[in-house]
């Protein structure tokens, strides 16, 4: 068989596997509320939120080669938008709050991105870090507007126009909000998959490889990077709204640089080179942290140690590890079926 058709077949095979795996995962997550404890379910909600944030972050990091150390800024903007809209403006609908959060993030991301995308590597990282810290100080210092370090409360929202105020907090989170967030994750994943596979995604990968060369081909490198930055900010805001609606609070720590660091940690843990890596990373991080916190008061130390081990021994993250394992399995299977 000629080489191109075998790779074509392999690609089709891989795609089928990916679709099958995705459907299976969604089915498991959809059935989970029937079996899992409410505690586990309330833990999965932030996983959903972070999964969305990391999909956005990885459009910058994995696809475009720009590592932001201030991405928590946009989660905080989403959260505070939710607080202002539900608390001050009396908006009840989560859909409107999500749109408001996205709009706020886009408005902030355009000037921040405009300045930041002119730089790459550590300079981009430091600039985004500074903007994140700037917003954090604003949240802390202007307590008349933002509630200072106590933050602002976020009122119960309606989902698709349904008034769910009769449900208890746990019922709300483990039932309607859980499914709402699951659908959001699915939609965000499919949309990001389209974006990454599109010519736009291709340009981002090309400029990551070599920005100058991309310009030789007529690519407006800065404009493409800015678009990626704004998109990732919008994803961050959706995550921020979800986190705030879950906790009922918009907290200034959401904007603190350690939160940005955690986002990067999750991405590295899951594997930034892989599309699903960030999703894996969000899940692994949340449950790992919960488990370690239950075991020892030195959980931060343990997390740091794990990050060191991941970077040294599995630089491609958990998703990379899984990809290697499936390749090995498939090769063994191929050998056996050929005999």
């Amino acid at each position, binding site marked *: 068989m000629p080489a191109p058709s075998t790779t*074509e077949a392999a690609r089709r095979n891989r795609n089928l596997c990916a679709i099958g795996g995705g459907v299976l995962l969604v089915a498991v997550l959809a059935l989970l509320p029937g079996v899992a404890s409410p505690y586990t379910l309330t833990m999965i909600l932030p996983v959903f939120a972070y999964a969305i944030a990391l999909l956005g972050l990885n459009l910058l990091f994995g696809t475009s080669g720009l590592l932001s150390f201030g991405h928590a800024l946009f989660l905080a903007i989403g959260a505070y938008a939710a607080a202002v809209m539900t608390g001050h403006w009396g908006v009840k609908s989560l859909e409107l709050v999500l749109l408001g959060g996205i709009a706020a993030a886009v408005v902030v991301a355009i000037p921040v991105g405009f300045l930041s995308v002119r730089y790459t590597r550590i300079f981009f990282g430091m600039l985004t870090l500074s903007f994140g810290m700037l917003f954090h100080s604003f949240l802390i210092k202007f307590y008349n507007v933002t509630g200072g370090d106590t933050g602002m409360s976020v009122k119960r929202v309606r989902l698709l126009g349904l008034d769910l105020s009769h449900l208890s907090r746990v019922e709300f989170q483990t039932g309607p909000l859980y499914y709402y967030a699951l659908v959001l994750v699915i939609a965000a994943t499919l949309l990001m998959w389209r974006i990454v596979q599109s*010519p736009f995604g291709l340009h981002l*990968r090309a400029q990551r490889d070599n920005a100058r060369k991309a*310009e*030789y081909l007529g690519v407006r490198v800065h404009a493409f990077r800015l678009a990626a930055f704004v998109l990732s900010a919008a994803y961050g805001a959706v995550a921020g709204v979800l986190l705030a609606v879950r906790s009922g609070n918009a907290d200034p720590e959401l904007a603190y640089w350690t939160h940005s660091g955690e986002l990067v940690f999750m991405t590295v843990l899951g594997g930034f080179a892989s599309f699903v890596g960030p999703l894996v990373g969000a899940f692994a991080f949340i449950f790992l942290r919960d488990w370690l916190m239950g075991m020892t008061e030195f959980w931060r130390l343990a997390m740091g140690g794990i990050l060191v081990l991941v970077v040294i021994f599995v630089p491609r993250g958990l998703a990379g590890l899984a990809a290697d394992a499936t390749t090995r399995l498939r090769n063994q299977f191929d050998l056996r079926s050929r005999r």
Partner: protein
Amino acid sequence: MLEIRALDVDIDGSRILSRVDIDVTQGEFVCLIGRNGAGKSTTFRTIMGQRKPVGGCVAFKGQELAGLSTFQIARLGIGFSPEESEVFADLTVAENIEMPTWVAGNRSTRSAAERIGMAYQMFPKLEGYRSRGGGQLSGGERKMLSIARALVLDPELLLLDEPFEGLSPVVIPQISEGLAAIRKGGRAILIAESQFHHVPDFTDRLYVIERGEIVFQGTVAQAERDAATMQILRGTDGA
């Protein structure tokens, strides 16, 4: 079509190009030849807007290029294949080639499929490698891919920096044939070359550059009759 007049370029305070004049007219194949460090790549980078000249000017089809950014110059119709590792390793051959067709604002009248087909036609070898990653190609294949990709911009002028450098003698004729075919299609080509024996026999004109200055211009036959020029050119072969 391309007019370079009295171009002076400084890098870190030292003069790299000094009063360089180069003309390329439509459909012409022009070769800029000189030793390593003579200023060939600097000339190309200045045309592409990456170096700001301190004096002189570069114009393309009568339009002054000063103040335009690189991507704008590319969209005017100048396809540049640089000397360094030429392909996006992360993209497949097909994606590398298609890339310029997705750029908005290209002034080409040909359809994307037409432009892509044209590129494969010039370098048929690439056809078999469509789904291969850019990083898996040999040096010669990379050069072909880089030239093919520049061609997909449907440029009126191609700038090729050392298209034959580091290639095996078997591959050089393949590239050379591709260039001949491109020229037949009516495009102008300016190549930089550091070795005289690589200069294709269909070259229309030759510019010899030495320490940032053009020291000779004329046909290959004229160069061969000029003793001083031949001394420099023989020097390039020896190097």
